[in-house]
């Protein structure tokens, strides 16, 4: 394999691993804030118990996000020097603002959030939680702004082969940015909601009937049930926006080769780039045009209009279907769960098992969605400005292969450990709190609780 494809796999591996953790932490921190505010308002210990349990998982996820994020910042230089040389004037300030306004804020106040409970007042502790939540969301804002600019670049001129900015406001709010940002933030909400619901259901199935478990289960299921229809709506808008600005991506997502009116919706197919047709196609007539243009006879441009200038079809086509499939599953499970919780006050055992199985469903949907949009941008790194192949560094293939193998094995091990530890923490939390078992450790009674109550 050549260095280009290895470097691409390496970047994809890094970003796929990295995105798992911010997609949890961005929204989980708002959920933590919700627990904290409920506690402040009601004084009910169950909310603080839920906070204490989930902040551990937050810290773990955050640490993995930080270390994999550092890797990303180096890879721009080690593997993709052409990127910054060509569009550094645009990308640079956005990345710099992310570090300045988000990273330091998150990292510093996370320290107070985790370790400061008995050194600061309850109010300061709540503020620290708010600042971390704001920081994680700001970080998403900047990086999605940059990504959206790479997808649909506007407001720049090329001078001597380098992009120069004409309007910063335009760079920040490119046509696809509001849709992508909303879509990503809700995706994070769903990822965190299913994580919270899944782990709580797991504890409940193991006989852990703590009030905090039920409180978290309800929070997770209700949040998911509210967010998923919103996400479907926003996803639709995002699709319409993509059709307008990147029609070749939509054509690949839908597996449409020839421009057609009244296009059918391909539920399944195996796209073949050799013959430029689909095999084993199962399709519903007119539905494709209706969904994409909201008109049964709407025209959709086919891939053949973009020959040599469109993304590889099969990965985009399948990634998109996986994302939508998981989304529909989320809709079914969260609504059924919400209905059961509302009617009976608890979920059925089978549904609880379903929630456990879907603990990390948000990851699958997020990564599949990310592949759809990123592979869908190929062969461009910055649409119409810079081809991916022109940005890669001259590092020889064997060396890239070596570093790739190192990252892959490291990430696989860490991912397995992370999932194991999350479930392990959940099992341990159900055991009676014995301070002497882990002196000064995780489950020791926390003196800060008493302090909080006096302050309120």
């Amino acid at each position, binding site marked *: 394999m050549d260095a280009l494809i290895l470097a691409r796999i390496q970047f994809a591996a890094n970003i796929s691993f990295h995105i798992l953790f911010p997609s949890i932490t961005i929204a989980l921190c708002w959920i933590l804030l919700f627990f904290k505010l409920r506690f402040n308002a009601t004084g009910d210990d169950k909310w603080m118990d839920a906070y204490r349990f989930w*902040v*551990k998982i937050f810290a*773990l996820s*955050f*640490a*993995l996000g*930080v270390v*994999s994020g*550092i*890797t990303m*910042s180096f890879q*721009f*230089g*080690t593997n993709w*020097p*052409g990127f*910054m*040389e060509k569009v*550094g*004037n645009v*990308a*640079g*300030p956005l*990345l*710099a*603002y992310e*570090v*300045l*306004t988000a*990273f330091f*804020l*998150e*990292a*510093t106040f996370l*320290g107070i959030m*985790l*370790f*400061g*409970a*008995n*050194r*600061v007042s309850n109010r300061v502790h709540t503020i620290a939680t708010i600042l971390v939540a704001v920081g994680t969301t700001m970080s998403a804002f900047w990086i999605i702004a940059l990504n959206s600019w790479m997808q649909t670049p506007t407001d720049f001129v090329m001078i001597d082969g380098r992009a*120069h*900015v004409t309007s910063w406001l335009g760079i920040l709010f490119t046509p696809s940015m509001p849709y992508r940002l909303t879509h990503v933030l809700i995706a994070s909400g769903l990822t965190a909601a299913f994580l919270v619901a899944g782990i709580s259901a797991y504890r409940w199935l193991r006989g852990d009937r703590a009030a905090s478990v039920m409180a978290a289960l309800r929070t997770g299921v209700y949040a998911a049930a509210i967010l998923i229809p919103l996400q479907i709506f926003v996803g639709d808008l995002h699709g319409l926006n993509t059709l307008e600005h990147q029609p070749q991506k939509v054509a690949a997502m839908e597996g449409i080769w020839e421009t057609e009116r009244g296009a059918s919706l391909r539920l399944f197919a195996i796209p073949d780039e050799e013959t430029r047709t689909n095999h084993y196609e199962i399709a519903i007539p007119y539905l494709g045009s209706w969904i994409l243009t909201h008109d049964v006879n709407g025209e959709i441009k086919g891939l053949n209009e973009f020959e040599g200038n469109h993304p590889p079809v099969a990965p985009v086509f399948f990634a998109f279907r996986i994302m939508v499939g998981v989304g529909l599953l989320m809709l079914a499970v969260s609504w059924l769960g919400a209905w059961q919780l509302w009617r009976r006050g608890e979920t059925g055992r089978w549904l609880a098992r379903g929630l456990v199985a879907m603990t990390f469903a948000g990851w699958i949907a997020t990564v599949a969605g990310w592949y759809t949009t990123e592979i869908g941008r190929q062969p461009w790194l910055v649409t119409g400005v810079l081809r991916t192949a022109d940005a890669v*560094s*001259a*590092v020889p293939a064997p*060396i890239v292969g*070596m*570093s790739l193998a*190192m*990252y892959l094995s490291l990430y696989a091990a*860490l991912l397995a*450990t992370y999932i194991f530890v999350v479930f*392990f923490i959940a099992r341990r939390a159900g055991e009676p709190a014995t301070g002497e078992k882990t002196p000064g*450790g*995780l489950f020791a009674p*926390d*003196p*800060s609780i008493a302090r909080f109550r006096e302050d309120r």
Partner: protein
Amino acid sequence: MWSYVTSADALPIIFAGLMGLSILLYVILDGYDLGVGILMRGAEPEEQDQMIASIGPFWDANETWLVLGIGLLLVAFPIAHGIILTALYIPVAIMLAGLIVRGVAFDFRAKVHAEQKYLWDQAFFFGSLLTALSQGYMLGLYIVGFENTLMNMTFGLLCGLCLAAGYAFIGACWLIMKTEGELQRKSVRWARIFVWVTAIGLALVSLATPFVSARIFEKWFTLPNFLLLAPIPLAAGALIIGLELLLRKMPLEGDRYHWLPFVGAAGVFLLGFAGLAYSFYPYVVLDRLTVWEAASAPESLTVILIGVVIVLPCILAYTAYSYRIFWGKVRELSYY
């Protein structure tokens, strides 16, 4: 004033300064927590918990200075970023592996079975050591110009060892400040050993740089520069001797001046950094690329500068606030 600051002459220098500041802060701040990681090897299990607790609230933010430093290199000097990081591809990859392992080990160790905690402590130690060694190696190769000759690589390895010792030294000073009793006495012993290895490292780099580049030789060893600059190495030497004399008597009665070794260590790092910065200026890649040649467009740098002017003081303020909250001796790890 602002129009001069945002001119194509001044901006690259300002950004070189900001990048230098970030790297210096990184080396001091993440230096002490990497050093604590390296020293974990010589500590008892309950001491290890205290050592971890002493850096717990800070390490995330400390590492962010590296992201800022590399980020500024990336955004302000993209061409240099490409040259440097492509040339240092392998050590960068190793350093990142080290950073990843130690970062997660820090969190995993507190959340697993007691038997496995030992394994994660090992991972924390090796990750910290690997990070320090590869950073030193990168510094060495950066100084001698990236060519992978045996001579250069040996020099890089030596720099790696010395930087790891430097981190262990400042880490020990941090522990003197944050701990008491037996662990504090142990930290004093560690500091006394590693201060000398650090001094050797400083001497090594100081002697090597003039020989790598005739330009640097002239910058230092002509009159009147020689006299004007002499205070830098002299102050570093005096500081190291002073530290040794102080450490001999530590801990003092009533734990007076428990913060002084850390400040002294930071001073040693500052002087070493100042010497190196003087040697390199105005080059960002030695004798190949000046800051002006490597810089991004002024309008982009101006936009970043506005952010820096507003946000950096806030960052420094809340960082100080965080250190104030956790000021004093480390308590039981009340982590939740």
